[in-house]
C-alpha cells in the first residue's frame, strides 16, 4: 500500500525532510511507518496522527492514509 508521511517542527529539522511517499506492506502500524520512513527505531517520543487525528504506536494505517509525526505542541 502507499501512504504519505509528514514531519513537523524539530523532527522535520532533524530528519531534513518534511514529507515523503512510502510503499509499505498492508496493515503496517504507526511504529512501523516511523521505522520504515526514517530508518530509526521507534522510541515513542514523537506524537503521531493518521489522517489528521491523533494515533498510537500500535494503530494500523491503510492505503492512501496521511501519517504525521511531530513533537509536543506549543501553540496558543
Amino acid at each position: 500500500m502507499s501512504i504519505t508521511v509528514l514531519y513537523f517542527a524539530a523532527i522535520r529539522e532533524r530528519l531534513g525532510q518534511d514529507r515523503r511517499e512510502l510503499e509499505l506492506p498492508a496493515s503496517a502500524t504507526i511504529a512501523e511507518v516511523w521505522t520504515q520512513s526514517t530508518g530509526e527505531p521507534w522510541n515513542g517520543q514523537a506524537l503521531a496522527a493518521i489522517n489528521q487525528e491523533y494515533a498510537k504506536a500500535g494503530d494500523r494505517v491503510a492505503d492512501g492514509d496521511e501519517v504525521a509525526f511531530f513533537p509536543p505542541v506549543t501553540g496558543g
Partner: protein
Amino acid sequence: MSVHLQESALDPWEWVQRHQAEHTAIQGKFGATSVFVGTMRDFNQGQQVEAMTLEHYPAMTQKQLETICDEARQQWGVLELLVVHRYGAIKPNDPIVLVAVWSGHREQAFKACRYVIDALKTRAPFWKQEQTSDGRHWVEQEG
C-alpha cells in the same frame, strides 16, 4: 461556530466585534461574552525574544480546533464560538490566538472559553520557534 487560521496580523477586538455583528440570531439571547487573547511576550524563561515563527499542520489544526469547539459547545451549551489563530512570523506584542464565547450566563462563557484555550494548547498542532540572541530554538511544552 468559526475557526480561522491566518498568517497576517490579527486584530482580536475587530474580529469579536464583526463576528458578533454578523451573528444576528444570537442578539438579545446572550448575556455573557468571555474572550481570551494570547499575545507574544518579549521575554520567555528569562531571555529576550526578538521574533517567533509558528509552524503548524494546517488540515489537522483546523480539524482539532473544530472538534474542541464542538466539545465546548456540547458541554456548556454556548450560543456561539470563535477561534482565530495565527501562524508564520510573529513579533513581540502581536496577538497569537483569540477565543471568544457567547452564552446565556457567565459561568458557561468562562468555562467554555477556558476549556478551548487549554485544549488548544495541548492538542492543536502548532510549534513555536523563538529567535533570541542565542539563535533559534523550539519552545518546550508548558508543564
